[in-house]
C-alpha cells in the first residue's frame, strides 16, 4: 500500500533521509523507532509531500505521489493524493477556530464537498467512536491533549484514507493521557487500517506492530518483527538505542 524507494531528503548540507526504501502492505502496521533526528518525521512528511523529497519515489495505493507521469504534480493532483493519506501530528494542529465536530468534518465539507448535514452525522459517529461523544461542540483549547489527539485521529479517519501516518502522536502528551490515544490507535489498527507510526512507545510497537523499523541517521538500520527487534536486536546501534529507551 505504501512503497518508498531510495528516498533522500537533504536540508542544506544535512542528509535527513539517506536512501530509505520500505514497503507497507495493505492492513499492515509498521512502527518506526529511532532517536530524535533520525529522520522518522521527515520520512512521514515526505510520503505525503509536506516535504518534497530530494530524490526517490513514493507510491501510495500504486500511484506515485507528487508526480503525474514525467511531470511534477500540480496543486490539484497533490491535494487529491494527500486526501487519501491521513496524517496525525505530534502537536495535533487542530484548528482552534472550530469546535471538535467542525474540525472532524472540515475535510469532508471543503475537500470532498459533502453537505454539512451528512458530514456532521459521520463526524458525530467518528467522535463517538474515539470516545468524545460529549465533546462535539467544544473548542480545542478546552480539551486535554489526549482528547485533542483523538479529535485529530477522527479528523484524519473522516477522509477515509487508504493509509494513516502517525508522527509521534503521543510524544507531547502527559503520561496519564498516552493510554487513551494508544487505545484508539490500536482499535484503528484492528479495523484493518494500513498504518505507519513514528513512535517512542515501545510497548505499543511490541503489541500492535506487524513490523518494526529502526531508523538512525537517515537510514533504516534494521527491520523485523517486534520479537526480533526487541528480543534479538542484531545491530549494536539498535541495542544501544533500546538500552536507553527501555529502562
Amino acid at each position, binding site marked *: 500500500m505504501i512503497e518508498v524507494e531510495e528516498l533522500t531528503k537533504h536540508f542544506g548540507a544535512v542528509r535527513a533521509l539517506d536512501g530509505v526504501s520500505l514497503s507497507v502492505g495493505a492492513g499492515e502496521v509498521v512502527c518506526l523507532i529511532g532517536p530524535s533526528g533520525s529522520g522518522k518525521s521527515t520520512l512521514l512528511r515526505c510520503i*505525503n509531500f*509536506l516535504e518534497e523529497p530530494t530524490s526517490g519515489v513514493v507510491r501510495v495505493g500504486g500511484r506515485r505521489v507528487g508526480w503525474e507521469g514525467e511531470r511534477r504534480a500540480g*496543486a*490539484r493532483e497533490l*491535494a*487529491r493524493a*494527500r*486526501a*487519501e*493519506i*491521513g*496524517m496525525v*501530528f505530534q*502537536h495535533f*494542529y*487542530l*484548528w*482552534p*477556530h472550530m*469546535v471538535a*465536530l*467542525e474540525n472532524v*468534518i*472540515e*475535510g469532508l465539507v*471543503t*475537500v470532498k464537498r459533502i453537505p*454539512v*448535514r451528512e458530514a*456532521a*452525522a459521520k463526524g*458525530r*459517529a467518528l467522535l*463517538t*467512536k474515539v470516545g468524545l461523544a460529549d465533546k*462535539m*461542540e467544544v*473548542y480545542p*483549547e*478546552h480539551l486535554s491533549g489526549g482528547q485533542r489527539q483523538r479529535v*485529530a485521529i477522527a*479528523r*484524519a479517519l473522516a*477522509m477515509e484514507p487508504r493509509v494513516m501516518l502517525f508522527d509521534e502522536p503521543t510524544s507531547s502528551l502527559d503520561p496519564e493521557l498516552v493510554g487513551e490515544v494508544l487505545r484508539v490507535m490500536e*482499535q484503528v489498527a484492528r479495523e484493518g487500517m494500513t498504518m505507519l507510526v513514528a513512535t517512542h512507545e515501545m510497548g505499543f510497537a511490541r503489541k500492535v506492530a506487524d513490523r518494526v523499523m529502526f531508523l538512525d541517521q537517515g537510514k533504516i538500520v534494521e527491520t523485523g518483527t517486534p520479537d526480533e527487534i526487541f528480543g534479538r536486536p542484531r545491530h549494536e546501534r539498535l541495542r544501544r538505542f533500546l538500552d536507553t529507551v527501555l529502562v
Partner: protein
Amino acid sequence: MHLDFGVAWKYLPILLQASLMTIALFALSQVLGTIAAFFLALARMSPRGWLRRPAMAYIWVVRGTPLLLHLFFVYYAAPAFGLTLDAFPAAIIAMSASAAAYNAEIIRAGLQAVHRGQLEAAYAVGMRYDQVIRRIVVPQALRIVIPPYMGNAISHCKNSSLASVITVPELMLTAQMIYSSTYRAIEILTVTGGIYLVLTSCLSALQMYLERATAYEQRGLGGARRRRLRLDTPLPSMPAS
C-alpha cells in the same frame, strides 16, 4: 477673549454635510485599500520572487512617502497620462493606495501569526492553497488583525483631512472656509474636532464590537452553527464499533 458658539451652531448643518464627504472618502478608500492590501500581503509572503519583490517595493515606496504628496501627485500627474481627474476620485485613488500599503503589512502580520502546523494539517487533509487561506488562515487572522487594523483605520479617517489640499470639500476644507469668512476659528475648529472625535469613536466602538464578536471560545457555538451541524437532533444511526 470672547467666544461665540452661536456661529458654530449656525454652521453646524454645513459641517455635518461636509462630514458625509469625509465619511465617503474614508469608507470608500478604506474598503478598496483593504481588498488590495489582502492580495498585496499574499504576494508579499509568496515564495515566488516575481510576486514578492514588486509587493515589497510598493509597500516600501508608498509607506515611505507622505500621503500629502500622493494626493498632489495623483491630482496633478493624472493629466500627464491623458486623464483629468476630479478632486474626489483623485483623493480616493491616493488614499486607497496609501491604505493598501499600511493594511498589507497589518494583514501580513495576521496571516503569518497562524501557526505553520495548522496549514500543514489542512494540506494533509487535501486542501488546496486557496482553501487553506479561506478556511483556516483568514478566520484566525481576522481576530488577530482587528486591533492594529482598526487603529490604522482611525489614522486613515483623520488623514482624510489632507484631501482638503486638493479641494475635496470634506470636513476640514469646509471648516477652513467657514472660519476664514467668519473669523471664528476657535469655535469652528472646536466643533469640527468634535465631529472627528465622534467619527473615530464610532470606529473604536466598532473595534470593541468586532473583538467581542470574534472571541468565539468564550461564547461557544451560536444557534445557527448548532443547527447547521444538527447538534440538537439525536444521532440517526450509530455504526457498530
